[in-house]
C-alpha cells in the first residue's frame, strides 16, 4: 500500500477526494485493468469496490498521498480475487497467474494510459455500432447506464442489457486491446471518432443546455476528442473532429434567444460566439491540414471555418462552403451533405439553382421524413416567390420537427410568407 498522509480527514473531504480521483482517473484505471484481463465489466466492478473501500478507509486513516495508486492497488487485488473465485480448475490457473503477473508488473505510481486501447476495443467492428458510443462513455467516463440511456433516448433496462452484452462480447470473442495494424488503423479510428461524435451530437441536440445530462455529454465528447487528438497527434481526422466539435460548441450560446427561441446560423449574434474556442478550432484544423490527408471531419470543420469568416467580412464564404460540400459528397453518401450543398448553391448562384439541386435529390427516399430537406426547400421556394409550394413544404417540415423551439421558428417563417407575398414576386 502506498504511504498515507497523517492528517485525519472527515467523511466529507474523503468523499470529495474520491470524487475527484473518480473523475480524473476512472477511465485510466478501468482501461489498465481491462486491457490486461479483457474483462471490462470485471474491471468496472473491481473499481467500484475500490471506491467503496476508499470511502470507508480514507475518513479513518486519512487520504493517501496518491489516491490513484491506492485505488489501483485495491482494484487490482479485487480483480485477482474475483478471477480466483471464478476459475478454480487447474487449466485456468496458468491464465490466472499470467493475469496476476501482468497486473502486478506495473508500478502504481506510473500507471500506463491504455484509454485509447479501450476505446478501440469498444469501437471494434465486431461490436454493434449503436452501442459503441455508449460503451465508451461508460468505460472511459464512468457514466452509469441510466444516464447514458436518457441521453440516447433508450430505456435504461435495454441500455443496460446491451452494454452487458457488448462487454461480454469483448471478453468472450477475444477482441484485442491494442492499436490496430497500420492497414486497419484509419478505418478503426473512424469508428472511434464516430462514437465520440455521436456522444457529442447527443449533447449538442439539447442546444439550450437545459437538460444537464445532455449538455454534459457535449463537453465530455470534446474531452474525449482532446484525449484522442493528444494520444494520436499525427492523425489528421482526430484533429479534424476536435476542430469540428470546438466550432460547434463555440456557437452554443448563440443558438437560442434569451427567450429560448431558435436562432438560425445566418441570424446569430456574432458577439455571442466564443472566440477562444473558435481560435482553438482554427489552430487545430490548420495543424490537421498540414498533414495533407483530407477526410470528412476536416472538411466539416472547414465548413464551420467558412461560416465563421462572417466575424471578419460580414458574410460567410459561400463559394468555399459549396466547394467543401462537393468534396464531402464525394466521400459520404448523406442527405445532410446534399441538402447543405444545395443551400450553398442557392447563395452562390441564386435560389433557383439551389432548388434545382434539391429537385435532383427527390429519388432519395430518406428525404421524405427528413425535416431539414423540407425546411431548406420551403426557404428557397419562398425566395423564388412560389408561396403556395413554400407553405406546403413548411407544413411538411413543421410536422416532422421534434424540437418545439425549431417548430415555432418554422411556423413563424410560414406565417411570414403571406406578409411578404406582395413583394415576393419582384424581389425574387
Amino acid at each position, binding site marked *: 500500500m502506498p504511504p498515507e498522509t497523517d492528517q485525519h480527514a472527515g467523511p466529507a473531504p474523503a468523499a470529495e477526494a474520491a470524487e475527484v480521483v473518480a473523475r480524473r482517473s476512472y477511465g485510466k484505471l478501468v482501461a489498465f485493468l481491462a486491457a490486461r484481463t479483457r474483462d471490462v465489466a470485471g474491471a468496472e466492478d473491481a473499481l467500484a469496490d475500490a471506491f467503496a473501500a476508499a470511502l470507508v478507509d480514507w475518513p479513518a486513516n486519512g487520504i493517501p498521498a496518491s489516491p490513484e495508486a491506492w485505488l489501483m492497488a485495491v482494484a487490482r487485488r479485487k480483480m485477482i480475487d474475483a478471477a480466483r473465485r471464478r476459475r478454480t480448475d487447474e487449466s485456468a490457473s496458468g491464465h490466472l497467474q499470467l493475469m496476476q503477473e501482468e497486473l502486478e508488473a506495473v508500478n502504481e505510481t506510473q500507471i500506463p494510459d491504455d484509454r485509447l486501447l479501450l476505446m478501440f476495443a469498444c469501437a471494434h467492428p465486431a461490436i454493434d455500432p449503436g452501442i459503441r458510443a455508449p460503451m465508451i462513455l461508460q468505460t472511459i467516463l464512468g457514466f452509469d447506464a441510466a444516464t447514458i440511456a436518457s441521453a440516447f433516448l433508450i430505456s435504461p433496462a435495454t441500455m443496460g442489457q446491451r452494454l452487458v452484452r457488448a462487454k461480454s462480447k469483448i471478453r468472450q470473442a*477475444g477482441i484485442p486491446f491494442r492499436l490496430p495494424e497500420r492497414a486497419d488503423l484509419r478505418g478503426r479510428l473512424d469508428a472511434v471518432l464516430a462514437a465520440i461524435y455521436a456522444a457529442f451530437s447527443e449533447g449538442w441536440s439539447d442546444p439550450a443546455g437545459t437538460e444537464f445530462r445532455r449538455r454534459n455529454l457535449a463537453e465530455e465528447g470534446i474531452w474525449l476528442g482532446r484525449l484522442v487528438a493528444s494520444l494520436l497527434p499525427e492523425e489528421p481526422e482526430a484533429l479534424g473532429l476536435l476542430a469540428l466539435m470546438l466550432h460547434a460548441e463555440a456557437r452554443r450560446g448563440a443558438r437560442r434567444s434569451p427567450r429560448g427561441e431558435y436562432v438560425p446560423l445566418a441570424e446569430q449574434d456574432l458577439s455571442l460566439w466564443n472566440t477562444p474556442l473558435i481560435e482553438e478550432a482554427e489552430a487545430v484544423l490548420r495543424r490537421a491540414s498540414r498533414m495533407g490527408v483530407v477526410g470528412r471531419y476536416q472538411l466539416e470543420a472547414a465548413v464551420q471555418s467558412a461560416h465563421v469568416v462572417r466575424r471578419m467580412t460580414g458574410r460567410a464564404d459561400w463559394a468555399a462552403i459549396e466547394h467543401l460540400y462537393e468534396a464531402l459528397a464525394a466521400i459520404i453518401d448523406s442527405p445532410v451533405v446534399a441538402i447543405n450543398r444545395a443551400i450553398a448553391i442557392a447563395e452562390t448562384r441564386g435560389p433557383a439553382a439551389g432548388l434545382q439541386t434539391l429537385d435532383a435529390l427527390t429519388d432519395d427516399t430518406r428525404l421524405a421524413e427528413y425535416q431539414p430537406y423540407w425546411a431548406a426547400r420551403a426557404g428557397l421556394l419562398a425566395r423564388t416567390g412560389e408561396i403556395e409550394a413554400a407553405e406546403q413544404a413548411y407544413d411538411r417540415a413543421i410536422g416532422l420537427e421534434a424540437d418545439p423551439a425549431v417548430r415555432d421558428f418554422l411556423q413563424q417563417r410560414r406565417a411570414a410568407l403571406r406578409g411578404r407575398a406582395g413583394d415576393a414576386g419582384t424581389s425574387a
Partner: protein
Amino acid sequence: MKYMLLIYGNEANVLSASKETVGQMIAAYGAYTEAMKKAGVHVDSGRLRPTSDGTTVRVVNGKTEVLDGPYAETKEQLGGYYMVEVPDLDAALSWAARCPGASHGTIEVRPLWVM
C-alpha cells in the same frame, strides 16, 4: 484462443459449377490450408458433403426420429470449417477474410468455450 471459421455458401452454385471452377476452388482452399499450417494457426479443417447427403436426428418423447436431408432449408449452407488457434479476434478475422469462401459466401467466426 480457438476459433471456428464456419463457411457458409450456396451449395447449389458449387454443385453446378464447371469442373474447371471446382478445380480452381480446391486449389485455392489447398493453398489457404497450407498457409495456415505454415503460420502455425491451423488446428483442424474439413469440407462437408452437400446437405442432400445429410440426415437429421432428434429424439421426441423418447422416440428417435430420423429424417432425410438438412434440419432447415436455408439460402446458404454450412459447407466446411476451419479451427484455428490465434491470439485474438483480429487475427481470426484476418484469416477468415483470406478464406476463398469469404468472397462468394459468408464466414462466421465463433470462439470456442474455454473448458
